[in-house]
């Protein structure tokens, strides 16, 4: 059965788009049919991260307004044949999205895909609320710092009140994904600890993604980090998170000890 998963955070710049792309690719590699949907109308980025920016013809707004068919707007990934992208419009703004239009698109995607990953814009306004509106599950992307955690908390409150599931008395299943985690700084007390974050958010942890140059490198070449360099620490962390989404139980590790060991092994390459 198709699952609609919204990747959201409240705060901007925490890694929603990166995580959507990485998790989408990881789920697709497991064999599921996956579509990643960019809800950031007017400030689209997911097409860049997916490396599909030169192939965008129609977009979410065109489909919502009936200008184009869904099949015309969907872009198939060149590396994975069961991974698709539905891009956002860059020339419009969030007011062009309507509740009814989003509902129709999500309904149609449900019949075609196993996973529908909605990349939410930052903020708590129309774009963000419509991205989460029809979600079955939610990933709340959080950085280990107070403002991000507080915004995530606000978003969790909205997931519990403004989604269709919540209005029907059900619950959107929520996962916290901690990104940009720097164990060295956390050890020095310069970051919120994982325990502190989870205590505040009172929501299960999906994964811990370390801060890494690998992610920047992958973004620059237009590839999800899980496809660009599947062996790097952040790609492994995303792969583990994707398997947890599929119901597997995998021990939660902070994927850094290994990296440090690696660096030591290779001499001080990272300095």
């Amino acid at each position, binding site marked *: 059965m198709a699952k609609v998963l919204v990747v959201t955070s409240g705060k901007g710049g925490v890694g929603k788009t990166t995580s959507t792309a990485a998790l989408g690719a990881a789920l697709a590699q497991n064999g599921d049919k996956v579509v990643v949907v960019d809800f950031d109308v007017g400030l689209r980025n997911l097409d860049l991260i997916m490396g599909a920016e030169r192939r965008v013809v129609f977009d979410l707004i065109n489909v919502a307004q009936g200008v184009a068919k869904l099949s015309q707007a969907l872009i198939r990934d060149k590396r994975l044949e069961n991974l698709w992208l539905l891009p956002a419009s860059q020339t419009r703004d969030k007011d062009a999205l309507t509740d009814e239009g989003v509902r129709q698109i999500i309904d149609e995607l449900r019949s075609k895909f196993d996973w529908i990953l909605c990349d939410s814009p930052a903020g*708590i306004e129309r774009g963000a609320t419509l991205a989460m509106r029809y979600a079955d599950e939610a990933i709340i992307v959080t950085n280990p710092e*107070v403002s991000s955690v*507080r*915004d995530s*908390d*606000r978003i*969790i*409150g*909205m997931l*519990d009140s403004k989604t269709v599931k919540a209005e029907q008395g059900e619950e959107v299943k929520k996962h916290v994904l901690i990104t940009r985690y720097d164990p060295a700084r956390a050890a020095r007390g310069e970051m919120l600890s994982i325990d502190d974050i989870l*205590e*505040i958010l*009172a929501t299960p942890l999906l994964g811990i993604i370390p801060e890494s140059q690998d992610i920047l490198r992958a973004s620059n070449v237009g590839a999800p980090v899980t496809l660009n360099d599947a062996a790097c620490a952040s790609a492994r962390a995303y792969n583990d998170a994707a398997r947890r989404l599929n119901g597997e139980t995998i021990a939660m590790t902070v994927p850094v000890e290994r990296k440090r060991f690696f660096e030591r092994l290779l001499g001080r390459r990272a300095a």
Partner: protein
Amino acid sequence: MDSKVDPQRQLVRLRGRSYVAFVFSPVMPIVNWLEGIDATLARSPGFFVGRPIVLDLSAVKLSGHGIAHLVSSLENRNIRVLGIEGVDSSLLDASLPPLLTGGRHCMIEQSEPKKAEVKKETEPKAPPATSLLLESPVRSGQCIVFTEGDVTVLGSVSSGAEIVAGGSIHVYGTLRGRAMAGINGNQAARIYCQRIEAELLAIDGYYQTAEDIDQTLRSRPAQAWLDGETMKITPLI
């Protein structure tokens, strides 16, 4: 309808006050009108028992004797007349109920025939909830307002969340947001929490912000209460 102004003169403080009462407006012939009252009593015998009744005699012309007779006829039916209006005061002697003036109409639901309007009784409604229980955490941006009584939160109250209660506030998790108790002027209201990291605590308008809260209390079970006009925050246990 009608209002009654207290006519006594005393050295003590006198206050005027209006009340709601039934008004009987008898019409001629009085005998027939009394039959109508009897019919009402036959349907619901206890209908007028214990209710304040005022006689409006403006529609009939009765002598002092006639008025006394009417009042005693009503008393025989267990209807006690609280006051009389619409007659000349010279007609009323000391044995009769006092003359009332200044009556005004008021609307009361549940009126019966005979122009009899019913005094508003204690409404038969479900007892109002006096406490609110929240089983999930209160998230940033949420504002819980419950003016009727206490609020109990089983989880935590996040930074940026707000609890407003008429009574006390109990938080069994960490209180990181704002808690305002006793907002209806209840100085006895208190705020309790398992861990205090609050942004603001207030009881009946007296408040302390995070900066005012003693650092040594932080992250411990604590309660806040009012000592006169000062808010005290003390450890629990």
